[in-house]
Structure formats: structure tokens, C-alpha cells
């Protein structure tokens, strides 16, 4: 596949300048350990988030925007669970949080959640989707990649190491799950791999265009193929039949560079060359992917840290500092460059510790704001195209994975039947696949119709999963609540808490009591229908 490489690579000059405030030139192999860098992680967190708060406050003043109020505990706890472990809080944990009088309980819960299996589970899903999508080519084993990411998360691997392993991986796909990332993108001379690595890890969209008018066009096309040349030795082997299939990712000793065609039709050659212009001298003998991986994670290269910070900020706020999140560079300046830079520097100093970054982001004032719009910040509405100012929390559509898990939590349905997490995941992934649609190109790009449109609404209203959710199997939360010896009003209040993490307003309570008491349906059915209504509501399906 040929790529018309564009101005995005123009960021080369911009991006390799040393990090502000960081020691330039620390070799990747010789990084200080986190203990040396951050004697007191708590104090570090605080100073950075205060700086971030100041930057955002200043920009709000300049734009004459008044921030929304601080979120209530109920609003916050639902959000923080969805953002960190990918589901709404279970009833018991919700109640214990609300009762807790500790002033630091909001940061405590962040730390606690990051130590749960739910955290590993959720983020291994996110990374698997980012790395290979929901329906990767058959050469790759999505399942083993997920398992590998889970391991990486549970052993607390740093982000630079994570990227290094994915880019340099070799081995059999079931033995080293990391190889499944590249196995998914090796078609067409590994051009998808070249573009994917740049976009995902560096926030550089090399496949974009607008190259025609650019004075340095030829040089840029070279750059793409020079990057592609790092995959020249990469090979995939298959042994056995369907039953015993072994797929391996290997590096051959192929000494050749890459040949590509210029627009004029002339063939050119590209040698493996890093973005900063360093040619890999003895490229015929070097393990090229390893050389590339080492370069990517060099702390003085801002790409890796800024791209991850942008992605994580986008995860927590619904909008990153650039739109799209993974298209960074001088052609697309960030909305809050100081915040991005500050967080990236801090992330590198923490030795690429993602949990540290999550702690920092979730302790900014902005993260604690309500999503309710006030007079004074109506203009801050990125959903309608304005650049985000972070004067309030933005409402996010739950992802398919979040919605699925939240339904399970809210209903405790589907608990029986699955022997373990793996079975449950396999079942869920099959279920999610029905919503995947593709674009018909060779770049393996896909999207989902589970995006708040009609197919999702149909599933939520009529689907199996919802039937199970409002079913009255013994052990379901609905049955437990109905069996409690309480008034209708109290039952309604409990169901609200389960589904929406809040109590009903007086108006809602009265309205619903009236429906429940006037219906001809048996009481049980009336409450099933109420639960259906709560789970189908905008409030349940939106992360706010």
C-alpha cells in the first residue's frame, strides 16, 4: 500500500526538542528508577495538578467562562467507577462511599479502584481494542493479546516498557501474546503497522494527506518508508492445520532496505532511519524493530508521553487537547498546550507510570466539576463543535463494554452460567461483535453501531440481555430488593440507587408511585417495568 504522507511528519522538528523541565538525553536503558525520581509521590501529584488547575482557571478567565459547581458525591462516584473500572459502582460500594466522612475519600477511591481486578479487566479491553480492534484478522489471537495486556497491567509494567514489548515482540502467538499486535497489521508490506504505531503511540497520523502543496513532500514520503524499513525483517510463519495452528512472529536476517515508488513513478530506496535523522548504520545486522522500540521510548522524545497524556485526558473528559485525539502536530495545535506539556513531563518523571497519571488527572479541579451547565458556561459545548474549555464535565456515551458491564452490575444477572471471567468475556465479545461494521478498506478499520443510535436502543429495549437484566431469577438484585420488607417508595429509592447512583426527586417519586399503584399488572411486573425504564434511560446510558 502506498501512503501519501503529509504535513503531519512536519512535527519532526517540533517534537524532538528536549522536554521542558526534564533532563534531556537520559538513555532509555539507563533510566532512574521511580524511587529516585519521586521521593514523595503524593507531593508530586499535588504540585502538578495545582499547576494544571491554574492553567485551566486562567484560560477560563480569558474566555469569560464560569466553571460549573463541584460534582456531588453521587455524581462523582458513578463517573470515577465508569472511568477507572468501566462499570457503575455496585450498591454496597456506593453506599459505603456515601457514608464515608473522610475528606480524602475521593482520591482514596481512585487508588483503591486501580488495585482491583476490575481495573485490569477494563484497561486490558481498552488496549486490546486500540491495538487490534474488536474483530482482528485471523492470524492474530485477540484473546492472547488481552491476556498479555492483563499481565502487563497486573505486574505494573511501565508504559514505555509496554510499548517497547509490543513493538519488538517475537514468538508464538499463544506463548507471547504481545506478538498479536503486529500480527494484525503486517499485510501490505507492513504499511498498516507503520501507520498504526505512529498513530497509536505517537499521535502522528502518517496516513493523512494534503501533501500535494507541501514543499517537503518527497522528503516526507521518504520518512514514511524509512520507518516502514524497520519492519522489513519482520516475518510471520504458520505451522500445522486448523487444530494445531502455530503462528509465529519472527525477525529474519533479511539485510535489504525498502524500495518504494515515488509519485513520478521512479523507484526509490529507504533505509531504516529514525525520525531524528539517525540512520541505523549496520542495518543488515541490527534487530531493527528493537532499535525502533528503543528510540520510541527515549524519554527526551515528546511524542510518546504527549500522545498518551492526550489519550488519557480524552478518556476522562470525553475530549482530548486535540481533535481527533490521535492527530497531533503543528497543523493541529492543542487547546491547552501548557497542561499537555506539564502532564507529559510529569508522566516521564514518574517513569511512565500510568497510575500516577490517572491519579494526577483525577485530582484536577476540572475532573471534579459537575456536568450540569450553568449560566456562564453554556458556550463550553464541544458536542456542538467548540473547542473544549473544561469548565464542566462533558457527558460521554458509555462504550459497549461499559454498558455491558454496568448492566451486569446493576442486575447481577448473568452471574450464573459463566464458569470464570474468560468465559464471560468470550460471551460478551461474541455479543459485541454483532455491532461491528467495517469500511471495506485494506486498513482493517472498523467502527461499531453500538454508539447511541437505533441498533443500541433496540438491543436495550428488546434484547436478550435486557430480558435477563429485568428477569426475576432468584439472586438477582431486583428480586432481593422486592423481597425486602419496605414500602413502595423505599423500593423505588433503592432501584434508583442501584441504576442511577442517586435517589429520585420528589416529582419522580410521586409520578412513579402513581404508575405502580394504579397499574393492573401485578406488583412484581410493575417493578420489573420500572427497572426496565431506569436501565433504558438517558441517565443510565450516559457517563456524566
Amino acid at each position, binding site marked *: 500500500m502506498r501512503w501519501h504522507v503529509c504535513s503531519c511528519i512536519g512535527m519532526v522538528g517540533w517534537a524532538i526538542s528536549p522536554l521542558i523541565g526534564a533532563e534531556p538525553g537520559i538513555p532509555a536503558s539507563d533510566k532512574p528508577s521511580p524511587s529516585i525520581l519521586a521521593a514523595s509521590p503524593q507531593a508530586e501529584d499535588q504540585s502538578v495538578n495545582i499547576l494544571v488547575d491554574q492553567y485551566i482557571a486562567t484560560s477560563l478567565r480569558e474566555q469569560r467562562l464560569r466553571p460549573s459547581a463541584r460534582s456531588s458525591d453521587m455524581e462523582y462516584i458513578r463517573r470515577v467507577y465508569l472511568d477507572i473500572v468501566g462499570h457503575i459502582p455496585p450498591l454496597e460500594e456506593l453506599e459505603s462511599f456515601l457514608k464515608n466522612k473522610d475528606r480524602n475519600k475521593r482520591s482514596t477511591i481512585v487508588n483503591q479502584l486501580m488495585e482491583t481486578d476490575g481495573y485490569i479487566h477494563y484497561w486490558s479491553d481498552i488496549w486490546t481494542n486500540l491495538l487490534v480492534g474488536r474483530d482482528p484478522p485471523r492470524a492474530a489471537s485477540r484473546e492472547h493479546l488481552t491476556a498479555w495486556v492483563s499481565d502487563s497491567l497486573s505486574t505494573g509494567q511501565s508504559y514505555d516498557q509496554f510499548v517497547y514489548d509490543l513493538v519488538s515482540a517475537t514468538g508464538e502467538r499463544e506463548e507471547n501474546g504481545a506478538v498479536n499486535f503486529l500480527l494484525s497489521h503486517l499485510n501490505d508490506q507492513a504499511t498498516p503497522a507503520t501507520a498504526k504505531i505512529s498513530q497509536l503511540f505517537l499521535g502522528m497520523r502518517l496516513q493523512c494527506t494534503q501533501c500535494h502543496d507541501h514543499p517537503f513532500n518527497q522528503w516526507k514520503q521518504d520518512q514514511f518508508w524509512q520507518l516502514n524499513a524497520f519492519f522489513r525483517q519482520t516475518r510471520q510463519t504458520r505451522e500445522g492445520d486448523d487444530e494445531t495452528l502455530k503462528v509465529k512472529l519472527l525477525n529474519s536476517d533479511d539485510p535489504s532496505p525498502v524500495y518504494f515508488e515515488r509519485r513520478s513513478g521512479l523507484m526509490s530506496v529507504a533505509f531504516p532511519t529514525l525520525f531524528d535523522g539517525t540512520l541505523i548504520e549496520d542495518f543488515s545486522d541490527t534487530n531493527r524493530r528493537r532499535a525502533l522500540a528503543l528510540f520510541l521510548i527515549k524519554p527526551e522524545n515528546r511524542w510518546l508521553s504527549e500522545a498518551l497524556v492526550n489519550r488519557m485526558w480524552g478518556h476522562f473528559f470525553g475530549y482530548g487537547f486535540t481533535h481527533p485525539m490521535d492527530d497531533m502536530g503543528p497543523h493541529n495545535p492543542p487547546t491547552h498546550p501548557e497542561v499537555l506539556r506539564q502532564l507529559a513531563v510529569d508522566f516521564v518523571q514518574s517513569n511512565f507510570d500510568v497510575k500516577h497519571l490517572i491519579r494526577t488527572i483525577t485530582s484536577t479541579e476540572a475532573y471534579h466539576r459537575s456536568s450540569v451547565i450553568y449560566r456562564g458556561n453554556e458556550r463550553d459545548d464541544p458536542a456542538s463543535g467548540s473547542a473544549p474549555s473544561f469548565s464542566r464535565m462533558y457527558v460521554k456515551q458509555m462504550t459497549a463494554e461499559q454498558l455491558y458491564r454496568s448492566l451486569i452490575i446493576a442486575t447481577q444477572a448473568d452471574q450464573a452460567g459463566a464458569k470464570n471471567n474468560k468465559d464471560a468475556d468470550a460471551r460478551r465479545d461474541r455479543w459485541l461483535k454483532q455491532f461491528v461494521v467495517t469500511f471495506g478498506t485494506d*486498513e482493517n478499520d472498523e467502527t461499531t453501531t453500538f454508539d*447511541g443510535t437505533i441498533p443500541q436502543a433496540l*438491543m436495550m429495549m428488546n434484547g436478550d440481555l435486557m430480558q435477563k437484566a429485568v428477569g426475576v431469577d432468584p439472586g438477582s438484585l431486583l428480586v432481593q430488593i422486592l423481597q425486602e420488607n419496605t414500602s413502595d417508595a423505599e423500593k423505588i429509592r433503592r432501584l434508583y440507587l442501584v441504576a442511577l447512583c442517586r435517589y429520585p426527586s420528589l416529582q419522580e417519586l410521586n409520578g412513579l408511585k402513581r*404508575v405502580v399503584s394504579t397499574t393492573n399488572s401485578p406488583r412484581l411486573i410493575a417493578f420489573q417495568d420500572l427497572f426496565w425504564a431506569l436501565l433504558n434511560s438517558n441517565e443510565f446510558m450516559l457517563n456524566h
Partner: protein
Amino acid sequence: MKHLPTALPAMNRRHFLGHLSSIASLAVPAMHFADRIQLHASQLRRSQRACILLWMGGGPSHIDTWDPKPESTNGGPFRPIATSGAMQISEHLPRMAKLMHLMSVIRSMSTREADHSRGRYKMHTGYTPSNTIQHPSLGSIVSHQMGTKVPGLSLPSFISVGGASEGPGFLGMTHAPFSISSNGQVSNLKPPSHIKPVRLRQRLEMLRIVENHFIQQKRGLAPTEHKAIYAQTLDLIGSAQTEAFNVNKETQTIRERYGENGFGRGCLLARRLVETGVSFVEVNLGGWDNHRDIFPVLKDQRLPELDQAMSALIEDLNQRGLLETTTLIWMGEFGRTPRINANAGRDHWPRSWSVVVGGGGLQGGQSIGKTDQDGIEVVGKAYEASDLFATLCHSLKIPSDIVYTSRTGRPVKITDNGQLIKPLLG
């Protein structure tokens, strides 16, 4: 809303009310245009315009389809054949060759976007991708302009068949494509059998209480859109028109004429949907991203599939008198490089490529614009995506000077200053 018909079918009243509440909060055309728009809706209803987009995901080669170059080394192995129109096309489109008096080929498209996602955006919206605004795709514009106003229609007005499409941008989720598979199967279309209408009503009454509370708290557009999507979904659930999805209702002969494959089914489905009153149907045929070994793939797979289904669709629309009011477009993200690459494939090429249009009052039988003898440069006037969009809007009787006001107050023209492609207007 005085232009709405006085006797709405009972079924449709709630449908209408649902849209009414959503329209009030979504992006609306600038106030001084509002009256014109309403006037427009009533005209549209009378003329019942519709549009079918045949989307060729991956970017099809122009030289191997509609703009053959037999004299050039770039020409490839396919020979040109004569057609019923004033142009020659690839020998592997023999059925289409007999219908080209109804369709025109624009051979001088030139669009600059050579990346799939950017090209897809451009050719769906008429705009270059922007970091600050999300433009609506043509299907969403049509849905917004007339979809909700087609009397008695209880299906979504923008339906995408057999693949992914572009979104509604600032027009909001209610104008997003409803995506269905090419066999017309819609999952979860009916409530479980034990949920009788009385229970569904009870559920919806409770849902209304919960939803309105959240909307009143003012958290932006999403809560209101959710409610509007549910209103559309309810229309769909209760609709007898979902019969249109059932392509198996067609006779075996007809199904075979379209082709027993995804695209064939999709085109047949498109005809059924347009007959039912759906305003915009996009049918996807992927697999044109032929970077290697392009010729056998086109000859044995893509072109026969395309030729069979597209010709059957045009024949049927024409025979049933629907072609006059149905605008048909065939296109992908871009064309493919005139030069054949080292892998016997062709790469992305937006500089000079072809789009096929017809129906909806557009003049057929023409070859508009041309490329040089090697298919590399446009000779004479080149057309941009915006020109195509202005022309399509004209054909759909949507005035191309409509200005939307996004909720941030920014005025956005429905097309990006496109000029009408005059020869198509007859």
C-alpha cells in the same frame, strides 16, 4: 408547523411529536431561513425526492471502470466497450453499458484527499475534515431537510446498508444513519412476545418520567438526543413498514437478477426502502482498496457484482417511474493511481477520478470532463466534492444556499461554495 398535513395517520402522531421535541433543541437553520425551510418541506413532500448512494469503500480505480485508457501503458488489460450513452466504459460492465443513457460519468473529479478516513469524510460531507466542526454527511442533510417530513414514514429516513457510513455531525444523533446488514435483518426489532402493548406503554410512561428529569438538569445535547432516538426506535418497532426490510419477499427471479450476494441484496433492499418513502439509502460495496493484483479481483469479483446489482437497480427504478425522483450516486473515497505499481495493483489517487450520477432529473448519457491520455491529469475544468454536492442538492431540490447555525453560533453553509455542474442540469 402549519405546513404539516392535517390528517396525520394515528400511528405517526407520536412520531411527529418526538421529532418536534428534538428538533427544537438541535441545530436548526438560521432563523431568517426558517420559513423558507418549512415551505420547502411541503414542496418536497409533493415531489418525494430520494437518493441512493452506492458507496465503493476503499476507492475504486477509474481507469478500470468508467474512464478506460486503452492507448496508455496505464490502461491495464481491460478493453473499453461502447455504451448507450456518449462514452465507453470497461468491458466488465456490460449490463451497465446498456443503461448509460440514463447515467452520466463525471471524469474530472479532483479532490486532494488520499487517506481513507479523510476521503470518506470529504465525499460524504462535501467538506475537508476540520478540527473544529463536524459536518453532516449528505444522508443526514437529506434526513434533516425532508426525512422527518415524509408523511406516514415510520422508518428512519437515512439508512446505511451493509457497512459503516459517516455521521450526522452537528445535526445531531437523530440524523445518524440507521445501519443494517445487507440481508435486511434487524436484530431485536420486536419486543419479547410476553411484552404486550399495555406493558410497553407502562414502561414508556415510567421512562418518560426518568428521562425528563435528566433533560431538565441541562447537561448538553446527549440526554435529549437519547430521548429522540428512542422515539425513532419506537416508530420503527411499531411500524408495518419494516416489511420493506424483508428482501426475501421478492421473487427468486428478481433476487437472482440483482445477484445472490451482499451488494445485490443491498441494492434490492435500497429499492424497497425508497419505494416505502425512505429519503436516503447508502449501499456499501467494500473491497476496492486494490494495492496488489487488482485486475483479477476486479474482473472476477468486484465488477461483475457491481454490474449486476447496479444495472438491476437502475432498471427497476426506471421501470417503476422512480428514477425521475431518485438521485443515484456511485462513488468511493477517491480513484486509484493511473500507474500500475510493482505489485500489479493501484494506489490511492484523488487527483483525477470518476463519479457516476443519474436519476433525480440529472441529464444522463454524458461524459463530463476528461483526463489526459494516461489518466493522470484533468484536462479542462476539474470538479471538487463541493461542486458535486451543490449539484446533488439541486437534484434533490434542497437549496444549496441554506445556512445552518451550529449551536456555537457559527454559520455553516450546506455546501462548501460548490458550483453547479451545469451539463448535468440539461
